[in-house]
C-alpha cells in the first residue's frame, strides 16, 4: 500500500457497508436456492445487436449482462461496492487516484485471465468509442495504467471520490476480443463476455436465450451466491402492449410487472388467476421515487412570479384523478427525495436551519414555518376551495378576472400558456388540469409533439410548461447541480430554468459534501424544502409498490432486496409448483 492510501475490499461513498468483510452472501438471497430450469420473459420492441456499447442498433436483452464490473453493489444499499473482478482496491485519501487489484482467478468466458491490461483497454475504448457523455463524465481522469498484470491505477486531475467510485462500476471487456473489432458498431454475433452469462441462441428481433455458464469462475463469490438460479432465461420480443399482456395470460411467458393502473385493476383476471396458476401481487417497496411533474419554465415571464406558480398547483385535483383515473393506486409526490431519509418533513431541524442561514433572506419564509404539502381536495371533482386559494394568490400577483378571462392588471394580457408533451398518456393527465384552469379563466393549451420535436424545443428552452420530471435521488448527489444550478441554464439540464442564488448555494454545498453523510442529510432536506416552497413544478404522483404477476412456479427468498423486486435475480423454480402447471409454450 502506498503512503496516505486506504486499502479495502469494500468501497462505500457515505455509509458504512452493511456486509462485513468475509461475508458469504447477501441477506436477501437464499444461498441454497436450487439452480436450474428455464424461464421465459418478454421484452418490447426489437433488437439487432449484442453490443451494448455500440452507438447505434437496438441491443438484445442480456447484452448488458455479458460483462462483469470490477466491483459490485448490493441491492439493499446505495453506493456500496463489494469485490467481483477486483478482489480489493486501494485509493488515495485525497481521492486523486485508485488502484484495483484484480482477482487472480478472474477469467473471461474463454478462460483467458482478466488482466489489468484489459481494464486499461476497457477504459480507453469507452473513452474513444463509447457513448458521448462517457467522455465528458470521465474527462477528469488523467491517466490509466496497468501497474502489473493484476493491478490497474486510475489517476485523476482533481480529487473526486464519486468518480473513483464509479470507475469501480466499469464493465470489463476482453481486449483480445475487441482489439480487432469496432466497439462502436453493432455486433450481430454474441461477443465474448466477462460474466457468468452468455447468449445461447437467438433469432434477430424475435427472441434471445440467455444461458448461465455453469463453470463461471465467480459463481460462488459472496456477491453472486444464491443469485442467478435459472439455467436459461429466454426473452421473447413483442411489439404491442396489449398483445404482450395477452401473451402473458396465455402462458407464453412467466413474469410481468405492470405499470398501468387501469390494466392492473381490470385486466388481470380470468380462469388462471382464479385457479391460482397465475399470481397477482402488490409488493410495497421503499425505492426512491422520481419527482414526476409538470415543470414550469421559470424563464418565462408569467412563471417568474412564485405566487403564480403556487396558484396553478391548485388546479391539479390529484384526489379526483387518483380515484377516477388511477384506481386509487398512486400517492402524491411531495418531495424531490421521495422515499428517502432526505425527504423534508415537518419543520426544519437545527442543522438544516444552520445550513440555510447564509441564504436566509433569499428563500421563501414558509420554509421555516410550514411543512410543505401539495393541496388536497375531497376528490369530488369540485375544487371551489382550491380555486378560491388560487384566485387569491393570482390577485395578489397582479392578475384579475376581466370579461371572464384572467388578465394581467397592468398589461391587460390574458394568462395563456402551453404545456408540451410527447406522450399520449400525459394528455389524459393534463386535460383535467386544463379544465380546472379554465374555471380560473386561464387558457392552457396542450401541445403534443413527437419526441424529436420535444427534445428540440427543450434544448431551445422553447416551452412554457413541460411534462417531465426529476429523476429519483437516493441521496443528494452532485447531479443535483446539473438539475438546479443556474450555471446549467444553457444546457439541456435544469429544465425549470432555475436561477436562484439560494439554490445555487445549496447544491454547491451538497456537491462539496458528497462523503459526509450527516451534512448531506441536512443540506439535502434543506434543499428539498427550498425547492418545495419555490413551486417549480406541479408535482404528480408515484407508486411505492411493485405490481407483478407471475405464473405460479417460483419460490423466492424470505427477504426482498430493499431496492429491487429481486426477479429474476434471486428467485428459483419450485419443482412441485412447476409440475402442477399445465404444459405451456415457455420451455426453451
Amino acid at each position: 500500500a502506498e503512503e496516505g492510501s486506504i486499502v479495502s475490499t469494500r468501497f462505500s461513498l457515505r455509509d458504512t457497508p452493511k456486509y462485513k468483510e468475509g461475508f458469504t452472501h447477501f441477506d436477501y438471497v437464499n444461498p441454497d436456492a436450487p439452480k436450474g430450469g428455464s424461464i421465459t420473459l418478454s421484452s418490447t420492441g426489437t433488437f439487432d445487436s449484442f453490443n451494448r456499447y455500440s452507438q447505434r442498433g437496438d441491443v438484445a436483452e442480456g447484452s448488458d449482462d455479458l460483462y462483469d464490473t470490477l466491483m459490485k453493489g448490493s441491492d439493499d444499499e446505495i453506493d456500496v461496492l463489494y469485490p467481483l473482478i477486483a478482489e480489493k482496491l486501494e485509493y488515495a485519501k485525497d481521492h486523486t487516484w485508485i488502484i484495483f487489484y484484480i482477482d487472480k482467478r478472474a477469467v473471461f468466458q474463454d478462460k483467458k485471465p482478466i488482466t489489468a491490461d484489459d481494464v486499461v483497454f476497457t477504459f480507453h475504448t469507452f473513452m474513444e468509442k463509447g457513448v458521448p457523455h462517457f467522455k465528458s463524465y470521465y474527462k477528469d481522469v488523467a491517466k490509466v495504467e496497468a501497474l502489473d498484470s493484476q493491478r490497474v491505477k486510475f489517476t485523476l486531475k482533481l480529487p473526486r471520490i464519486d468518480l473513483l467510485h464509479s470507475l469501480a462500476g466499469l464493465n470489463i471487456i476482453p481486449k483480445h476480443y475487441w482489439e480487432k473489432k469496432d466497439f462502436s458498431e453493432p455486433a450481430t454475433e454474441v461477443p465474448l463476455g466477462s460474466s457468468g452469462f452468455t447468449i445461447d441462441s437467438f433469432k434477430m428481433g424475435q427472441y434471445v436465450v440467455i444461458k448461465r455458464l455453469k463453470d463461471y469462475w465467480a459463481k460462488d463469490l459472496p456477491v453472486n451466491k444464491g443469485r442467478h438460479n435459472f439455467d436459461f432465461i429466454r426473452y421473447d420480443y413483442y411489439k404491442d402492449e396489449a398483445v404482450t399482456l395477452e401473451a402473458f395470460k396465455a402462458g407464453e411467458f412467466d413474469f410481468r410487472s405492470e405499470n398501468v393502473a387501469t390494466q392492473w385493476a381490470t385486466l388481470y383476471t380470468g380462469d388462471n388467476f382464479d385457479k391460482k396458476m397465475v399470481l397477482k401481487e402488490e409488493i410495497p417497496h421503499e425505492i426512491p421515487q422520481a419527482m414526476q411533474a409538470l415543470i414550469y419554465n421559470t424563464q418565462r415571464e408569467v412563471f417568474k412570479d412564485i405566487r403564480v406558480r403556487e396558484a396553478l398547483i391548485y388546479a391539479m385535483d390529484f384526489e379526483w384523478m387518483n380515484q377516477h383515473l388511477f384506481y386509487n393506486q398512486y400517492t402524491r409526490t411531495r418531495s424531490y427525495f421521495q422515499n428517502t431519509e432526505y425527504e423534508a418533513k415537518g419543520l426544519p431541524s437545527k442543522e438544516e436551519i444552520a445550513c440555510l442561514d447564509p441564504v436566509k433572506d433569499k428563500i421563501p419564509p414558509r420554509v421555516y414555518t410550514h411543512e410543505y404539502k401539495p393541496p388536497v381536495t375531497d376528490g369530488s371533482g369540485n375544487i371551489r376551495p382550491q380555486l378560491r386559494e388560487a384566485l387569491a394568490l393570482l390577485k395578489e400577483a397582479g392578475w384579475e378576472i376581466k370579461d371572464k378571462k384572467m388578465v394581467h392588471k397592468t398589461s391587460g394580457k390574458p394568462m395563456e400558456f402551453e404545456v408540451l408533451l410527447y406522450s399520449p398518456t400525459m394528455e389524459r393527465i393534463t386535460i383535467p388540469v386544463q379544465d380546472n384552469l379554465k374555471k380560473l379563466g386561464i387558457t392552457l393549451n396542450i401541445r403534443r409533439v413527437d419526441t424529436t420535436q420535444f427534445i428540440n424545443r427543450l434544448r431551445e428552452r422553447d416551452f412554457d410548461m413541460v411534462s417531465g420530471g426529476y429523476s429519483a435521488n437516493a441521496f443528494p448527489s452532485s447531479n443535483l447541480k446539473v438539475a438546479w444550478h443556474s450555471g446549467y441554464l444553457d444546457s439541456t439540464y435544469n429544465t425549470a430554468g432555475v436561477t436562484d442564488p439560494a439554490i445555487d448555494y445549496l447544491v454547491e454545498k451538497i456537491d462539496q459534501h458528497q462523503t459526509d453523510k450527516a451534512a448531506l442529510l441536512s443540506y439535502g432536506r434543506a434543499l428539498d424544502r427550498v425547492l418545495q416552497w419555490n413551486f417549480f413544478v406541479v408535482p404528480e404522483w408515484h407508486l411505492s409498490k411493485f405490481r407483478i404477476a407471475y405464473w405460479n412456479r417460483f419460490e423466492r427468498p424470505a427477504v426482498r432486496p430493499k431496492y429491487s423486486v429481486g426477479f429474476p435475480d434471486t428467485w428459483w423454480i419450485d419443482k412441485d409448483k412447476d409440475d402442477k402447471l399445465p404444459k405451456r409454450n415457455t420451455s426453451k
Partner: protein
Amino acid sequence: MTAYILRRLLLVIPTLWAIVTINFFIIQVAPGGPVDQFIAKLQGIDSGVMEQVSGEGKAEITKTDIKEKSTYRGAQGLDPEVIAEIEKRFGFDKPIHVRYFKMLKDFLLFDFGNSLFRGGSVIGLIVERIPVSVSLGLWSSIIIYLVSIPLGIKKALKHSSRFDIWTSTVIIVCNAIPVFLFAILLIILFAGGTYFNWFPLRGLVSVNFHELSLIGKVLDYFHHMALPTLALVIGGFATLTFLTKNSFLDEISKQYVTTARAKGLTENRILYGHVFRNAMILVIASFPSAFIGLFFTGSMLIEVIFSLDGMGLLGFQATLQRDFPLMFSTLYIFTLMGLILSIISDITYTIVDPRIDFEKNS
C-alpha cells in the same frame, strides 16, 4: 412505342434526382433531427408516437427501473460539448451542401450506408424485412384478388339482388373495421389465454422451425400467417369488389357481349373470356406493379400487433427517428422501383388494350 419507352426510361433520371433533392432539403431544413432523437434516446424518452401505436409505456408513472441506479446523468440532460460531439457523429458539423453532394454521390453508386439508429446497413435492414413483407403481401393479395374479382362479377350479374345487398353490406362493414382493433380482437379470441389458444401470437415461424420437417415447416408458417393475413385482408375486399362490379356493369350490356352470347358461350366464359379484359383494364394494368409491390408491403399496425419485422414499421420508425439514411435510401429505392413500375404499367395498358397509345392527342 420503343422511342416512348426509351424516353420514359431516360426521364427516370431527372425525376429521381428531383425527388431526392427536394426531399433532402425539406427534411434537412425541418427543425429537429437525428441529434434530438439521439438525445431523446439517451434520456430514455424515445418511445413517443410508437407508444400510441403499440400502447407501450402508457404508464402514468415513470418506471421504477430496478437495474438503473440514480447516478445516470444522461437522464437529466446533456452537456453542450456532448451535444456537439453527437452532432459531429451524425455529420451535422458539415455544411448542408457538402452533405447533399455526398448523398448524391453515394446514391449514384448505390451505396446506401448504414442506419443511424439501428444495427446493420440500410440494404440489410430492407432485405431482412422482405420475408415478412412478402408473406403479408402475397397471401393477402392472393386472397383479396381471388375473392373480390369473382365476387364482384357475381354481384354485377346479380345487381340489386338480395345477394348483392348482403354481400355489399358485409364487405363494407368489414372495410370499416379498424385493422388494429380487429387484430387485437383476433389475438384475444384465438391466440390469448382467455378464450381459444389456437394460433401463435407472434412471429413468422416458430422458434423450433429449423427442426421441423418440410410439411411441418409449411404448416407452421401458415399457422403463423393465418391471423395477420386475416386481419390484413378483412378490410381489403371492398374497393376491388366494387371496382370489379361496376366495371362489369359498364361493359356487360355492350354489343360484343351479345355477340359472344350469340356464339353460345357460357356466361362464365363470356365474363372471364370477353368482358374481363375490357372491364378490368385498370386492374390488369396495375397488376405487375401490384405484384412487385407485394415484396414491399407494409402494414405497420399488423406488424406491431403480431410482432413482425416488416417494411411498414421500418419506414414509420425511420421517419419518427429521423433516421435520414434509412429515410432517403428507402425513398430512393422505392421511388426508383415505382418509376420503373409505372412504365411497366403503362406498357401493360397498351398490351391489354391495343387502342391505347400515349401520343399527343391530334
